[in-house]
């Protein structure tokens, strides 16, 4: 699939809208303040696995920025960028996951989860805290703890929601020459 096709653009728009709705209205508060258990990352990983890295980066970026905007506290750039990097990282592997062709077996489930775990570790364990320190001059132990808690929660929700979505999507996709009236 071409990276800049109209379909990818629409996927980015709709993906960001879904990311927003899930993140803004279906967020579940976690024990650590300021940090939500966010189910939107399951969605992000799923769409990135279908449409590729560009879609992943931009859905994370736009969706997260819109959420921040709607709360009115400006854009918390460090976390927005981390979301984008997570989406992009999972998206890199979209060819390997071959979800668009409607194939999603055991091998792909394992790969998908491997990529998403690494992606979350990079995003929340490294990128977000470093940017927090760099941009906002916040204390290191605070931002790393926050990042780790968020990352761990995101890994769990992505594993559940993302995998279910991939499986359901692959099942719904009609295979070549498969539809005949019975």
């Amino acid at each position, binding site marked *: 699939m071409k990276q800049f096709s109209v379909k990818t653009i629409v996927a980015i728009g709709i993906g960001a809208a879904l990311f927003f709705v899930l993140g803004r209205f279906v967020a579940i508060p976690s024990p650590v303040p300021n940090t939500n258990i966010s189910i939107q990352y399951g969605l992000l990983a799923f769409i990135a696995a279908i449409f590729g890295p560009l879609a992943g980066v931009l859905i994370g970026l736009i969706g997260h920025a819109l959420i921040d905007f709607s709360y009115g506290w400006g854009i918390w750039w460090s976390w927005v960028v981390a979301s984008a990097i997570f989406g992009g990282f999972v998206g890199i592997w979209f060819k390997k996951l071959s979800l668009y062709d409607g194939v999603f077996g055991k091998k792909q489930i394992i790969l998908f989860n491997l990529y998403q775990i690494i992606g979350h570790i990079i995003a929340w364990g490294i990128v977000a805290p470093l940017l927090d320190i760099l941009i906002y001059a916040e204390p290191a132990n605070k931002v790393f703890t926050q990042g780790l808690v968020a990352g761990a929660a995101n890994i769990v929700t992505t594993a559940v929601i993302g995998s279910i979505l991939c499986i359901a999507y692959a099942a*719904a996709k009609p295979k*070549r020459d498969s539809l005949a009236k019975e």
Partner: protein
Amino acid sequence: MKQPIISFEHFGFKYNAQVEPTLFDINLTIYEGEKILIAGPSGCGKSTLAHCINGLIPFSYKGKMTGSLRLGSRETKDMSLFEISKTVGTVLQDSDAQFIGLTVAEDIAFVLENDMVSFDDMHNRVKTAAQTVDIANHLKNAPQELSGGQKQRVSLAGVLVDNIRVLLFDEPLANLDPAAGKQTIELLDKIRNKTNSTVIIIEHRLEDVLHRDVDRIILMNDGRILADMRPDELLSTNLLRANGIREPLYITALKYAGIDIRPEMFPRNISSIRLSEEDKKKLQGWYENAPPSNPKPPGDVLLSARDVSFTYPNNVTALHNIRIEITKGEMMSIVGSNGAGKSTFAKLICGFERHSEDSLFLSGMDLSQYSIKERADHIGYVMQNPNQMLSKTMIFDEVALGLKYRKVPEAEVKNRVEFALKICGLYPFRNWPVSALSYGQKKRVTIASILVLDPEIIILDEPTAGQDFKHYTEIMEFLTELNQRGVTVVLITHDMHLMLEYCSRAAAFSGGHLVADDTPANILSQPDTISKASLKETSLFTLAVRCGIADPEAFISRFIENDRRERSR
């Protein structure tokens, strides 16, 4: 001699996912400036044919094309989608999905923006197009703030801003109220006369489209073209009925009376048809000989609304003091203009929107005490838009969902689901994913998923929109059968004949008010109610008046009796 603008030669198409081709050996030439109507049963490939013309096939839907399809003098497969869309402007079947802009104005401007038209020029052209379709007062509205009819107008304007030679409409009338449908057809005619473009309309509501003349009707079934004739010729054959399409009602009535329809009679329209004195006599004779109908006695009150009012969070008051009683075992309809509050009323009954206490009662019990699920044990509601109801990927699972949650044993689930699928004409597709169905087929899946639950009272929101006559008959006959077994049926519909044919009673809504509650025939005999609730009298009424029949209503009810008997053969 007119130039051919679209020509199919031995054309065929198979979707990648399908085993069988969807279109076979299509031979069709459409000339510049023609107005064409394409009709055919649901799922026969009309939208697929349209997608071949506008280039979505092969550019977006992948599959195997055979034969040749030329636009002007060039093969479409050698053109780009952009080149094709400079010639063909499409209004898609799903008018919600093609509303892309944030507001009406931006949506109309969309094609101009992409063509880099300058700011001032664009604003002028948008204004002109909006005025042509009479939507200029809503330029700043978001799609969520428009009624179905208004959205349809916006999609029209979105195609009109660009000077386009071929206009292609996929079911422009589905979901429009009778008055708006008539206006749309008049509007299409006006546009064609003004721009001299070629117009292709795909529609199940044949009689409504023929309100204004078309040059030819293409009749399709099972992916083939069966007929390509002038309306006068086609209506003189029995092809329409034989292929599960409803012919205009006055034609059917004349045929029942034993009158031979010939092209010289100009049967294409109720106002153009020429009837000899002899024909009129025949019709009168048939009317007098038909057996009389016998109405059903009323039962106990099942559902009562006592002063129901409702305001949406955006301060739109959708219902004002509705008082109505629905009796056990009756089959009634709710009719009225787009945006009159019909769907809102149904949603209140099901608990999808919250109403105040002491306003809705089911068998004397205050409904506000019950959750949606508890109400659903008694009341089944088929929503207007099938996409809002579909939640499983496979058809079988979708229909079985409600039974599974009610913990019905596996074997019984299978039987009941298969039965419901048969009623709705979906049994051959039971193992398909929902996403591979046409719009009309999806709607039937949602009907099946409610029928399977055996509710006491069933509310169907536009059950026959986008359905062909065969499936219409099957669904309606099954509902009648349910009704005879004591199930109460409420139909929300824009189809005047459906209301006359199946319902003993109708409630007409207008602007959130209940403006009439009477027998369907009485409602349609009050010009005041007709105009308030955007209804339309049927062509049977007009026919009866033209033939000097003293009691047109009795004529209609005798037609219906006869028609039911003929169809159940």
